[in-house]
């Protein structure tokens, strides 16, 4: 089926070239980072994880979000989603590849990465994160590819795929749970030390992932003769609506616990993010923007009138994607490190090279996503002929 990826029109190749150029620029900056060290980023002794790890965390969510089309179709036999499950699975593949790349560019000694398998350490959550992420990647490649190929050949997919499909559902939950455990099990980091971190990650994932999927569906309908379907998009929109509501609810739970208990260790990070602490407040406008975007997203997706208007729905999805990205991709990591364990504030601001490399990784992910979606859509066009 790979040949379908190279049979495209001018627009397709233009878009691919555009992405490839960004990947190339990002790669060149990465070579600079490889030569100099992570000192070209804004990271410091106090904030030792930043933009890369934050984007990694967000994208694990997008990857897990793919399960929101797989689960209703295979578990509840919701037939309408049969049309779009492949899009969810392919979105997961592209997202996990971005995740792994973000981890790689974050390493100080990337050429030693195989030490993780050479000296497997079951007590390290990072070890398990590597295991579940790679497992999820392979599951989706195997399932997505075989199901699509079967569809192309006009036959039912192989029987042995069924257990793998069922396995992929809890596996999707596991990737974001384990990713949350990276943070919430660390003593002395009050912002992350909350049992609700994994559920919170999942709720934002199930909003951001399907939101991106809706946008992809709308684009696919425009650029190809395959229509993912109005019912499918509306069902996804309802999932997004519930998930974003739950996400904001979980966040408010955090705020209540931190401020009613009045424990400084838990309040300080939220204060730093939302009102500034000891005169430092680089993230204040961003965090409020995120909160407002998520509220707007709730209004637009919950109210049936706006949700049913696909133009408005597209805007709502953009708003929700941005809101959850700022929340997780910007505030979650920097906020957890500030103030530091010695209660000092050294603000972390991502540097330009750091942002450049991150953009390169995103572009690479979208390049892979475009190729995969191109294949999927071509097969669908072929089959419906």
């Amino acid at each position, binding site marked *: 089926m790979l040949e379908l990826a190279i049979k495209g029109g001018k627009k397709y190749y233009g878009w691919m070239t555009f992405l490839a150029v960004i990947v190339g620029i990002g790669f060149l900056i990465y070579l600079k980072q490889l030569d*100099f060290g992570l000192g070209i980023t804004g990271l410091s*002794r106090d904030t030792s994880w930043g933009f890369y790890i934050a984007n990694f965390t967000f994208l694990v969510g997008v990857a897990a979000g793919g399960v929101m089309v797989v689960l209703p179709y295979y578990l509840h036999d919701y037939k309408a989603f049969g049309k779009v499950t492949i899009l969810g699975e392919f979105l997961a593949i592209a997202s996990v590849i971005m995740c792994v790349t973000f981890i790689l560019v974050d390493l*100080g*000694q990337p050429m030693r990465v195989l030490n993780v398998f050479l000296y497997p350490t079951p007590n390290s959550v990072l070890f398990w994160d590597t295991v579940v992420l790679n497992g999820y990647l392979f599951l989706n490649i195997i399932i997505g590819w075989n199901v699509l190929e079967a569809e192309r050949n006009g036959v039912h997919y192989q029987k042995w795929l069924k257990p793998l499909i069922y396995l992929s559902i809890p596996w999707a939950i596991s990737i974001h749970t384990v990713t949350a455990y990276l943070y919430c099990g660390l003593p002395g*980091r009050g912002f992350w030390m909350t049992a609700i971190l994994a559920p919170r990650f999942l709720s934002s994932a199930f909003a951001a992932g399907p939101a991106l999927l809706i946008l992809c569906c709308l684009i696919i309908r425009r650029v190809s003769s395959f229509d993912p379907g109005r019912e499918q998009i509306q069902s996804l929109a309802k999932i997004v609506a519930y998930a974003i509501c739950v996400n904001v609810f979980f966040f408010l739970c955090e705020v209540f616990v931190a401020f009613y208990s009045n424990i400084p260790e838990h309040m300080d990070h939220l204060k730093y993010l939302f009102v500034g602490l000891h005169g430092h407040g680089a993230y204040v406008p961003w965090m409020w923007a995120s909160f407002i975007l998520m509220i707007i997203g709730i209004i637009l997706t919950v109210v049936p009138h706006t949700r049913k208007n696909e133009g408005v729905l597209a805007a709502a999805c953009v708003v929700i994607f941005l809101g959850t990205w700022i929340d997780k991709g910007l505030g979650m990591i920097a906020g957890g490190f500030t103030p530091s364990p010695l209660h000092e504030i050294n603000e972390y601001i991502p540097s330009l090279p750091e942002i450049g490399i991150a953009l390169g990784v995103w572009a690479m992910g979208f390049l892979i996503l475009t190729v995969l979606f191109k294949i999927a859509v071509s097969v669908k066009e072929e089959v419906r002929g």
Partner: protein
Amino acid sequence: MDSSRRRILQLLGVSALALTTKPVFNAFAKEAVSAEAESVIKAGAQALKAKQWAMVIDTRKFKSEADLQPLVEACHRIHNVPRLQNKRHEIKWIWGTRYHNAFPGKAAQFVAESVEHRPFLVLCNHCENPPCVRACPTKATFKRESDGIVLMDFHRCIGCRFCMAACPFGARSFNYRDPRPFIAETNKEFPTRMKGVVEKCNFCAERLAVGRLPACVEASRGALSFGDLYDSESKVRKLIKTNYTIRRKQTLGTEPSVYYIV
């Protein structure tokens, strides 16, 4: 044509898989014979030994930041700790800070004046339950069973910095760039580090191995004491017995091995 190409690809895949299993079989094959041939690291005749090394810092003996300087100097000089101008890239194994920074949970609004102005020496606590060791995905940082020191293998560290996030004491530093040009005078008896790895205080494991106390203890003129926490006759135990001591963030359950007399 098409099916034969597929067949060849399948064969190639299976052969590649077969090749990768060879190291696994090798590992099993080695296990059986090498039990007695395994190399042993012998302790030196003068080596100092303990079940869990611990330190007691008598903070009353330090009046100003200047009093700490010789200790910090001694440590950073012999361990090839670079002096970097950019604060973000800073590397430190042991340093002085204020009471409310060393003990953020214990800082009251009103504190004894002497305590408020006194400098507090902070370093790796060589915890009995080190969260950094729990977090490391490659065992590059580990707790040495023989004496409880939390050590680093600079050659195994992949630079993921999970240990830095896990440490509640901010004791770890990362080499954000090549540190070697920033070492004033290289001590040939201790390794320098490369960019991209984490480092921290090692309780002078290399000195204990040849019967010498840690450099900071030696330079402290009696303000710092060092000994075995599980030897009731040791100097640190006697000090803990006769003085009221506190530890940093004790409530986190990491069991720090550095005690402070305030």
